[in-house]
């Protein structure tokens, strides 16, 4: 073509290198933040809780994940769910964070079975097998999401934030 193009450097964005790929794995799940009773759960303890299974499509194939509803974990920690989820509490949200620092946000209402049928779980098995190291031991599965960007892998922490007290 020979066309003169102006592709200047002014648009450059200098992203900072990320220096800590992954930290030591805790192997546990912490439910904390503005809850009445913070929890630290081991994989064995999570398995003792009421189980929920969801099947999602990955690469054109169904995969059955099993675990515990996030709403159930919040209820155990004394978060305002069920009949208590009203008024200012509805503005609360949850930050889920993985071992590599990746995090995603869920409004508390979308985690409460009283409000939604979305069945967002903390999964610990896929098709009956433990999750792989790069996924587990815990991973969020949000079956209604059409992208997996909130499916936090290597999940280690769930924090409740109350916007209005």
């Amino acid at each position: 073509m020979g066309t003169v193009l102006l592709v200047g450097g002014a648009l450059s964005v200098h992203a900072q290198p990320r220096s800590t790929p992954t930290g030591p794995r805790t192997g546990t799940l912490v439910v904390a933040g503005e809850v009445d009773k913070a929890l630290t759960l081991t994989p064995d303890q999570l398995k003792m809780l009421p189980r929920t299974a969801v099947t999602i499509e990955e690469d054109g194939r169904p995969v059955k994940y099993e675990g515990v509803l996030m709403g159930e974990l919040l209820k155990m920690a004394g978060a305002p769910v069920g009949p208590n989820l009203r008024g200012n509490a509805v503005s609360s949200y949850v930050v889920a964070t993985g071992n590599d620092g990746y995090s995603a946000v869920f409004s508390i209402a979308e985690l409460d079975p009283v409000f939604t049928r979305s069945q967002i779980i903390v999964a610990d098995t896929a098709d009956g097998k433990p999750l792989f190291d790069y996924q587990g031991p815990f991973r969020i599965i949000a079956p209604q999401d059409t992208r997996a960007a909130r499916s936090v892998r290597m999940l280690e922490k769930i924090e409740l934030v109350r916007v209005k007290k």
Partner: protein
Amino acid sequence: MKFTGSLCVAAMLFALPAVFVAAADTPARFRTWKVPATFPLPPVPADNPLTGSKVELGRYLFYDTRLSGNGTQACATCHQQQHAFTDARAVGIGSTGEPHTRGPMSLVNVAYTSFLTWADPTMTRLEDQALVPMYGDHPVELGLDNADSWLSRLAAEPRYARLFTEAYGTPDLTRERVVKALASFERSIVSARSPFDRYHFDRDDQAVSAAAKRGEVLFHSRALSCFQCHGGVNFSSAMTGEPRPRMEPEFPNTGLYNLTGALSYPPEDAGVYRITHNPRDVGRFKPPTLRNVAVTAPYMHDGSVATLDEVLDHYAAGGRTIAYGPHAGVGHDNPNKSEAVHGFTLTTDQRADVVEFLRSLTDEALLTDPDFANPWTAPATTGAESSGKAR
């Protein structure tokens, strides 16, 4: 689902026999493909259904040097099985000696590839892509003449009468039939037998090393984010399969160059820009599959990166810096660079782990699988053997 989700197919049972034999009521294309149950089924054009006889004809054509104008090259010249159907050169060299601007892409799992070649969002069918090396003259690759005189050379080969008849019902040789058979053979090249596959789908924990497992964690970490462009069972965002709709690949600019002047990439190949002429598309190329990446060096579209270690250098720096020469520039600052290429630091051990993970993607069985090998060096099969063969 995006990214790692796609790799989580993992937990499903996986068993891939050496020769895939499907149930009687399985669609015909299952019987001709070594596609494990845990992989999506690649799409096939309605006007070119996959059959074993067409795949076999395509294999003969793929390895036939009569498919070049001067009889010196075949498709297999640049797409060599032992190199996962690449050629171990930086860039391809055509039948007349003319160098290409790009290295031959691996044909492994090409049936899953939503967009073909390095940087053409409009090229989606293997039947169309085959015409480029056959007839293209910028550069000349196979160098066939548009009048198709080469078909008469093929017709002189006695085996083709049988092979074309088995594939199409009559022995007629046409350009369309040749192209459809080549595309069918290419679609049959499925790589799914690597140590990674045995670990993920057979749940054989011993199939890969502890280092490879650590490398997999790093590969999928937020810091490296390799999975953003190389996710899914084919380790490429440019992947399609049934029944999921076609994905839009991102064609990322990875900061490989940052020249001063009109174009930030070498003008002989500025990526998607070559098609769109949109300045934002300068330097944008498709993320290729990483399956068998350990045997497909050198790397990048122009083969300008020699080793996997150097690939990690490039991404760790958030773009390559070239200090001297006509391509000098700081790739990190390329204005079109993808946000996914942000740079990272790795310890020596972590770097070795990532490379070990990439090596676990090598499918040794594919590299020597006789079903994908040169048929002209093997004894001719009889019609009965060929027509009934389950691939």
